[in-house]
């Protein structure tokens, strides 16, 4: 049998393997939890502390699995189901992205659009879960999260359109990567660099990191959207965030910086982006939600529009 050709059953098994083990759920969860440790460790070092051991996030998840699950009055089914939907879509994004890196030509046309849609679902699941808990602080957090989505989605999509224009209209993550392997990374051009900066700001907001973490501000609204969650659903939300922490920098690498995609190059680029995100997180105060919307719809959108115009002129 020629290599690369499978029967239908084998193909299904391969898809299932991709989704559950590599590069889907298991792999992305492990990498995400270790990146969560990098986050905590770098934070601790910035504050001149020692920080937790590398397996700390795994222990946290195992501990949460053994805790009581308290379901508040309100819509119980949505309360318990919404974390699951967030996790499933985050894993799907991780799978599509990982497959695009492993075999760039095997994707389907338009997977970048699918990824864009799937990346919103974790945030929406957090909103639905928070509202169904009937807690007033959770409602405040959820309304902030909604405004945050409205704020960052516009510049994020524009930044991705810059990439699509620059890679000759390719609508497939694999072909965007191929384009960059052949013609150099988008990051080295002026429009690509501008769009990259904007996209970094947007994923900072997507990850709910400071300065854009007003939806779960621990000091003012006590955990905000996650306030009523305990036990298993909380563990699922933590896992979803961990997987997003792995997926979003990888998405940026695939879109902007994929001139070299060997394993070690990928690891180095990923750690570099992660540390930049964590340093931004640690050196900024939390912004109010109105400031955030003004920031994203004002200066950030202007910058990404300039990048768009530069890209149309071929710079």
């Amino acid at each position: 049998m020629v290599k690369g050709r499978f029967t239908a059953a084998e193909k299904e098994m391969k898809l299932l393997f991709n989704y559950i083990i590599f590069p889907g759920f298991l792999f992305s969860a492990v990498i995400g939890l270790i990146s969560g440790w990098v986050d905590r460790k770098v934070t601790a070092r910035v504050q001149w502390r020692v920080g937790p051991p590398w397996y700390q996030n795994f222990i946290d998840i195992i501990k949460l699995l053994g805790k009581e699950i308290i379901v508040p009055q309100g819509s119980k089914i949505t309360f318990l189901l919404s974390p699951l939907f967030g996790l499933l879509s985050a894993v799907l994004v991780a799978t599509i992205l990982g497959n695009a890196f492993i075999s760039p030509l095997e994707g389907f046309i338009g997977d970048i659009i699918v990824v864009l849609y799937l990346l919103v679902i974790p945030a929406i699941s957090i909103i639905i879960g928070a509202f169904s808990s009937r807690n007033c602080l959770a409602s405040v957090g959820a309304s902030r999260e909604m405004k945050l989505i409205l704020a960052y989605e516009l510049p994020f999509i524009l930044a991705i359109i810059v990439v699509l224009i620059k890679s000759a209209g390719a609508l497939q993550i694999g072909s965007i990567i191929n384009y960059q392997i052949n013609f150099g990374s988008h990051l080295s051009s002026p429009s690509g660099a501008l769009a990259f900066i904007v996209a970094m700001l947007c994923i900072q907001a997507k990850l709910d990191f400071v300065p854009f973490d007003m939806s779960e501000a621990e000091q003012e609204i006590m955990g905000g959207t996650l306030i009523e969650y305990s036990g298993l659903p909380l563990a699922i939300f933590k896992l979803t965030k961990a997987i997003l922490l792995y997926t979003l920098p990888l998405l940026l690498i695939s879109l902007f910086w994929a001139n070299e995609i060997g394993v070690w190059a990928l690891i180095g680029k990923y750690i570099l982006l992660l540390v930049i995100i964590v340093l931004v997180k640690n050196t900024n105060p939390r912004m109010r939600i109105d400031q955030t919307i003004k920031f994203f719809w004002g200066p950030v959108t202007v910058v990404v529009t300039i990048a768009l115009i530069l890209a149309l002129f071929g710079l």
Partner: protein
Amino acid sequence: MGLKTKALTKSLWVFHLCAGGSCNNCDIEILDLLTPRFDVERFGIVLVGSARHADVLLVTGSLTRKAAPRARRVYEQMPKPGLVVACGACALGRGIFNEGYNTPCRLDELMPVDVYIPGCPPKPEAMIAGIAKLINKVKGQK
């Protein structure tokens, strides 16, 4: 010792409850635990914002008439297995408010307390010693 118990001892999330009558000095000393000198995040201990996320309820201050039923309610909101630590003389036995008309009861008349940390205020070293005792208690050792 099962995996769950072991995980619980290695990752204690603390909800800090200041129950009414208190001079806030214990609270200041608790914050010292998070500073570079003591850094209890090395052992997986973090402060969390919601009682639903907590494994340990750390109570300071003597319970006032208004605060006592609410403290009990916070304890009931914490998912089990949950532990309670009383920190400072006020939480242990009402402290200088012992004969006050407004401080009806001690903390352990209201909820089961696992570890008592005496002192007014207790030093951060004493609190770390208390946490070590708490972990040993969870493990089932003396």
